[in-house]
């Protein structure tokens, strides 16, 4: 019985040590990969941040309204540094996943596969959001300038509506990219978009009938005025 117990104990210990010995190289490799990820991430972060600063990325963000949005969210970091940091974490996360795969643990491997499968979707969703944001700012500014120069009433409201519509659209597209409740997002978007448009039409046509009438009359008067105005600017 004693022999059996000792044999079992030694057997278990052997198995444990074998497992540990089998696991250790993987762990070591994982730690090395993590350290490498830290190094590559840091180098890329520094390089990209500096390049963006040289390319006046911060000023471009400033003029495109990105800095102002970050300010409102109490993020005071310059956009170039922010992009660098984002890149660092992306690289580090990728290396971390690669490091975990070196451990050869079944469920971790599956998790990693899903992570790398999902990563392009996250990136494309971020890209959609960024493009949507830039486009919304650009077009809302264009709408504001056109409305001011054409003498339309409430130019800021017109610009805001343009901006919101594009932002909502890009947000819905980003969620669709992420495959987050696609059918609900799509349905919600169609309902919300339709409701907004219908509401605007009703508000303008019924509630603001007089305002609409005055605006149209003013536009026609303006055209007549312009025809009567003998200015030749060139």
């Amino acid at each position, binding site marked *: 019985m004693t022999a059996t117990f000792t044999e079992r104990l030694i057997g278990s210990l052997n198995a444990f040590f074998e497992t540990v010995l089998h696991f250790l190289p993987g762990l070591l490799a994982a730690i090395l990969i993590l350290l490498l990820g830290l190094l590559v991430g840091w180098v890329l972060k520094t390089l990209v941040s500096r390049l963006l600063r040289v390319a006046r990325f911060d*000023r*471009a963000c*400033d*003029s495109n309204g990105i800095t102002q949005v970050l300010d409102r969210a109490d993020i005071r970091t310059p956009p170039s540094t922010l992009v660098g940091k984002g890149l660092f974490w992306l690289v580090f996360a990728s290396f971390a996943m690669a490091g975990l795969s070196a451990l050869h643990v079944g469920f971790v491997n599956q998790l990693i596969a899903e992570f790398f499968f999902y990563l392009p979707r996250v990136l494309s969703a971020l890209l959609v959001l960024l493009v949507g944001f830039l486009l919304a700012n*650009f077009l809302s*500014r*264009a709408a*504001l*300038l*056109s409305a*001011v*120069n*054409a*003498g339309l009433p409430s*130019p*800021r409201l017109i610009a805001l509506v343009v901006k919101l519509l594009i932002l909502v659209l890009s947000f819905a597209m980003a969620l669709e990219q992420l495959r987050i409740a696609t059918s609900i997002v799509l349905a919600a978007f169609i309902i919300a978009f339709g409701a907004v448009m219908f509401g605007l039409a009703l508000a303008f046509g019924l509630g603001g009938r007089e305002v609409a009438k005055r605006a149209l009359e003013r536009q026609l008067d*303006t*055209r007549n*005025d*312009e*025809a*009567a*105005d*003998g*200015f*030749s*600017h*060139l």
Partner: protein
Amino acid sequence: MIDLSFLPESLRRQLADVGQVDVLVGIPSYNNARTIGHVVRAVQGGLARHFPEQRALLVNSDGGSTDGTPDVVRQASIASFETILAAHPLRAVHRIVTPYHGIPGKGSALRTVFAAAAVTGAKACAVVDSDLRSITPEWIELLLEPVLVQGLDFIAPLYHRHKYDGTITNSIVYPLTRALYGARVRQPIGGDFGFSGRLAEHYLTHDVWSSDVARYGIDIWMTTTAITGGYKIGQSFLGAKIHDAKDPSVDLSAMLMQVTGAVLSLMGVHAARWREVRASHPVPVFGFEYAVGLEPVPVNLARMLERFRTGARELGEIWQHTLHPATAREIAAVAAASDEEFAFPPALWVRTMYDFAVAHQHGRLNREHLLRSLTPLYLGRTAAFVVQTRESGAEEVEQILEELCLQFEREKPYLLERWDETGGGR
């Protein structure tokens, strides 16, 4: 080396048939059937009366008119030369009607005219707009003679215009061009010019024909290139300029953006040159100046003020990327003033324009947005000008404009400082 490969084969053949000429007149056109006949007859008369012994060519460079403009050009002729000439002209004026190639715009049309001048070896050339109603045969003499006889290279027009006519020219293009390059060319974007064959060839050596120059910036480009190229320039007094009513769909904002954008783009190209210019000098004037009776111009002052104030209220965020904080504060104060006390001081306008020039070069804002945001400010300055000159005669108005030009020259150190400060000049 001049690249003439863009000329269509048919035009090459026609130019070869014509051979060498002494003088050439170009008329760019696009749907000007209503007015171009008169312009062609005036050119024909001018060439017959003032250059009877010269071999002459008239080139109509058309942008694909659909109203029969080319046919009008082909058929237009003076019924009887006896009404304008003592004798019948010695030489017939050759006439070529050709569509131009390239992107649509006056620049592409004039490129074809320059190329025709280069191929035919024309010594003196002129271009006149096709929508002119006030052109006379004397215009052709006044644009060509200083080039052909006096040896000048570039002749800009000089018109008598109503005090409220050409306000973009008066408040932006003329003072800015004068302060930058030092030449007092009163109508830098007049549209009717005389130039030598060698200058036409010089124009062709530039690669600007795919840019905005070809679309709508050709007039200021021709003037600026002539000045900065060190060519001998002059001005000819042509009298009144009356042209066909402009297309009402072309709005002020777009017009201002195109013209100002062209001036400011050239400013970036010639930065090294204008940095060295400290003062302006007069440009010789040809022709006999006389007073011209001008139609009164109705003005809607209230609307101009309203647009300016709307801009001041709504565009603060955009202007903050453009204007110096002190300038922005002064503009806010101007906008807050009552109609009775309204004034947009020349010094403020000059600094505003210089701030826009720096912002245009520096590229912090999208250029189209930047230039469109200038419209309310321009209307504010124009409204102030109207208020200031309501009772003024032509001479007094010219004196006020002279003062504005001097202000542009005096404030040039401010421009240089801001230009360098923001890295625009480096």
